[in-house]
Each structure stands twice: as C-alpha cells, then as structure tokens.
C-alpha cells in the first residue's frame, strides 16, 4: 500500500480497520472504513477515540466521498486523519484535499509526480473550502495554505 499525503499531516498505517457496524463492539480500534452510503454522523459517539476515517471510492465518478469528508471536517469537527482509497484519479487530488482529506491510497501503477502536479495545479480557487485561506484581490477568489 502506497500512501500519498495531500498536506502536512503524516499518514499513519493502522493494523486494524473496521467497518461502521463493527465499531461499537471493538472499543480499542482507532480506525474505521466508511461505506460510500454511510452517514458520517453515525460516527459521532466514536469521534474522540478515532484517529483515522477511511472513505472508499467504489468508482471515481461517485462524488459522495467529497460530501462525507466535508461533513466529517465541518459538521463533526473531526480532527484525525481522513483517507481516500479505491478507484481515485490524480485529477481529484486538490478536490479531496479541499474537502478535508489528508491522504490517498495510491491505486496500482500511479505516478506520484503526476499526483503532486495535480495537487498544486491551480494557483487560486473561486470558493471557500475547509482549508485556511486568504483572499486574492477582491471578490470570491482565495489562495489556500498548501
């Protein structure tokens, strides 16, 4: 498994990863895998002990992950690591980061340099995200901490 870090946070390997239904019985587990159809709000009782939430793309076109990540960061104020895995494209790197994802499990045959390039492709954004930002000129544009 190759991990690609989208920001400052160091991605950590966790030995045991459980699904949402398994979480209640495994009180010592610190990492969970959310299904694409799971509501992140179900993690509320466990947030204090969780260090990692893994979100899984069944296919790169399924954009629910972006909303899941945002809900975790913005609504639930989850401060641990959020990771994406599954069928994901380098072209989605910046979107993931801007929704609060910290790391990606690189699919087989990925070129980390391409991921790096896509991550820093755009100098500005036209809307706020979960990242700290400062305005660029007047209007909506922002430059984000990278």
């Amino acid at each position, binding site marked *: 498994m190759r991990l690609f870090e989208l920001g400052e946070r160091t991605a950590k390997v966790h030995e045991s990863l459980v699904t949402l239904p398994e979480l209640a019985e495994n009180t010592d587990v610190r990492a969970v895998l959310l299904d694409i159809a799971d509501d992140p709000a179900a993690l509320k009782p466990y947030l204090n002990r969780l260090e990692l939430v893994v979100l899984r793309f069944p296919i790169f076109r399924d954009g629910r992950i972006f909303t899941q990540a945002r809900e975790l960061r913005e609504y639930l104020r989850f401060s641990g690591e959020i990771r994406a895995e599954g069928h994901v494209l380098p072209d989605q790197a910046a979107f993931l980061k801007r929704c609060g994802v910290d790391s990606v499990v690189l699919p087989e045959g990925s070129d980390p340099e391409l991921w790096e390039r896509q991550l820093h492709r755009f100098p500005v954004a036209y*809307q706020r995200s979960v990242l700290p930002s400062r305005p660029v000129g007047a209007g909506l544009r922002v430059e984000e901490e990278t």
Partner: protein
Amino acid sequence: MSVPVGHYQYDQVDRDFLEARIAEFSEQVARRIDGSLSEDEFKPLRLMNGLYLQLHAYMLRIAIPYGTIDSKQMRMFAHIARRYDRDYGHFTTRQNIQFNWIKLEETPDILRDLASVDMHAIQTSGNCIRNVTSDEFAGAAADELVDPRIHAEILRQWSTLHPEFTFLPRKFKIAISGSPHDRVAARFHDIGILARPGDDGRTVFRIFVGGGLGRTPIIGQEIFDAVPEERLLATLEAIVRVYNAHGRRDNIYKARIKILVQALGIDAYREAVEAELAQMDLEHYRLTPEMVDAIQARFAVPELSAPDNAAQELASKRRENPEFDLWVRSNTHPHREAGHIIAVVSLKPAGGIPGDATSAQMDRLADLADEYSFGELRITHLQNIVLGHVRQDRLYALWSSLKEVDLASANIGLIGDIVACPGLDYCALANARSIPIAQKLGARFGDASLQAEIGALRINISGCINACGHHHAGHIGLLGVDKRGEEFFQITLGGRAENGASIGTILGPALPEDDTVDAIARLVDRYLGIRQKGETFLDTLDRLGDAPFKEAAYETV
C-alpha cells in the same frame, strides 16, 4: 484595456487560472493517448472541458457566462469557425456556442485561442454545475428589478471547479433572472433563482428547485421565498450538498435533482437543506457586500445618452417603411432608458437552421455591436442574438445593415422562431432529424406578415425523449420518435416556459415529417379561424381545449 460592458473583466489571476486549466487538459489528452487514462476515466474529464463525442466528430461547447460576450469574443468565434470548423457555429438554448466538427488534437489550441479573449469551455458538460444562464435583456429591460448578471458571475465563480460538486449524480443547471417576467425558464432548471431588491438595499432571492425537462418534465417548486444575499452561497451549498449525498446514482434517468425532490417532497427537501444550514459555519460561506461590490466593479455600465428626438425619429421611420415597422414590432423590447431600445437579431431565417451563424455573420454582428451597442452582445435561450442598448434614432440604420447580411428576419417570439435540438444530423442519441422539419416549418411560415398575423407562437422540436429542443415547453412541441425505422413526430400543445410554466399535452398519434408539417399548418389555420379578437394561440387553446386542434391536425390522416 477598457472594461467590457455587460460581463466580468478578467485580470491576470483569472487568466493564470485558465492557463492552468488548459495545461491540465493537454496533459489529460496525452494521458488518454498513452493509455494511462482509460476511455471511461477520460470521458468525464473531457466533458468538463466541453468536449463531446457526437455521431460524426467531436463537438466543443464553449461557455458564454450569462449569455453575454463582447465583440472581440464574437470575432474569436468567427476565427474558430473558419480555422477549426466548417465556417459556422451553433448557438444553443443554454446561451452557449458549439462547434460540431472539431478534431481532438486541435482542442488545446482552440482552448488557448479562447483564453486569449478570456473565454473557456469549463463545465459546459459533465455531471457538474453547468454554465449559469440569465436573462438576455439583463441590465437593459424596462421591466427589470435587478441586473442578475452580477450574481450570475458570482455563481459562475463559486461553481468553477467546486471541490465538492464536480462529481454530482448528474448535470446541474442554474438560471437567474432579475425581472418579474421570467425570461430564463427558472422553473425548468435544477435551481432557478429570481432576484429582487431587498429592504436593506441588498438583493434577495426567491429560489426554485427540482425543475427540468428531459425524459421526465417537472416544474420546479419554491424552496425559499427570500434568501438574503449574504446567505446565497451557503443556501446553494446546502441545496447541492443534499443532492450530492442523496441523489440516485444507480440509474442516469433517475439521477437529476428533480427526481430526489419528487421522492422526498419539497417540504422534506427544505427541511434537509435547513438541517445542513443549521450545521454550517455561515460566516465561512458568507457572501459579503464587499465581495459583491468588487465583482460588480468589474462590469462596465454603458453611458447612455440619446438625442431628445430619438423616439420621434424611430416613429417616423416606422411610418415610412412597413417592413421595418414589422421588424420593430417583433424584434425589439422596451429599454429602461428613454431614447433607447433592445434589438433582437433573429438567427432563424426562413428555411435556415435555427441558431446557426456563419463566420461572416459573426464578424458582422461584432462590428454592429461595436457601432450600435457598446460592443456588447447577448445570446438568448431561444438561440438569437441581442444588441441591448441601441439608440432609437439609429435603429433603422442597424436594421438596414442587418438586412444586408440576411439577419433581419422579423420573427422573434413568432412561429418562425423555432427551437430545435441538433437531432440525428449530429447526435448519437436522436431518433429523428430535428433540423429538416424545422427548416420546412420555417419556410412554410416564412412570410413576415403571416407570422405577425399568427402572433405569439413557439415551436420547439426535440429529436428524442431527452428533450434538448424543450418540446415539453413549446406552445407547439414536436418530439421525434422512431416507428419501425422511420422518423415520426409526436405533437404536443400548450407547453410554456415563462410565468405560469406548464408542460404540453400530447395531441394524438405521431405522424411522418411532411404530414406533421401539414398538420401544423392546418392547426394554425384552425386557430386563425376560431380565435377571438386579441387572443394568442395559447389563449384560444386555454379557452377551447385541444379538441378543435386535434380535429384539424388529423383531418385527412
């Protein structure tokens, strides 16, 4: 460089962003060619850059935000038509332009040419928030409350490469109007927005959600009556977030927001949006007056001044020339400023292809925009071109110039102002060719006096049930169907997109192309015979129902 009238002025930051987008797309094309991107993976990426694969070639759809361009941009379209296409372009019902004969490998060059005039093809396709449409008479119409283009530009920026909403269940279309006369078909959009002035001097928004045409035509429902300006982006984030999380992804025909709104009911949808808003950091999403004012400052406002006798000049030209008078009646709209008028240039010549323009016509329109309307042009959702700020005493000269290039058809809002999808001539999905029947109908009713006599009557033609020609919303709608390998057309009556939006009802069995043209001719004759004084086609239909029209249409069949 002077600030353009009617649209946002780019600066270096905006240009660098476009540059980065083109570099990204060039690499994506290269990755497709070397095989590191599969066709399945490349497809949504190219679609989000406006590139479709049609029946015979690639098509590139270029964004015209809120339908407004300047003369320099129009000349660039002419250049693209000449250099990369077959010397023409096609203006669409979503105020964009598309070129139908594009080579994949030339696409990055075209995007670079476009970027040189601050244009792009971003999000003109794909399952993302599409180019935002607006009122073609924005900033000019006498009946307008708020110029919606400032907020349309804000929505364009907000939706551009939105990190959360770029892989939605399906495409997502937003329209915004600032007039009580809905000219954007707000209730046939995923989100339709009507802007009006609020008590505090800022703008407030009435928002409809879940409208759309396509296979399942549904009229949008009001979700909020008065969203304050500072809450606009937060509210849209919440509406789209609920859709992204819960919209169906198992069936593309059930994936639009309208299906979700129907499934939940508008009250439950509103509650879900309010639950999002309750959890959001509203300050974070706040659209401040300073942000709005800064965007507004990038729009130039035309300095209007007309001689006192401008209106008399126009009146006397109309008396002298009945042909000109006829054109003024159908092809102009009242301007907010005395001595001015809004002129609509029809791209629907009798027997022509609706919405097409040649490079020579585009160049000429750009010149006329410079000469008569501050270099500004607007594309209408009925595929015509608007010159928004013409002095009344110069309207006759403008009309004379339009006549020289065959752009003076007097048929706006009349039966010749036909909307047709590209149909089987271009589109892989179509069952029938929409263009030839549009040409036949246009020719049949070509006479300007006849069209004036018939009055307000809209024909919309779609080549298949995906309804890109908006047949559901046409006063007369035609839907192409395949009957044992032959092209037939189903007729619907009574659709309308404007205030009091409704969906047309099917008149009877589908007919072959030529029989359909004849049936419509009989149906129109019947209307002329039974209408009461002052009635439009819709008035007569509403009064009598479709029985007399059904009888006429199927008389000899």
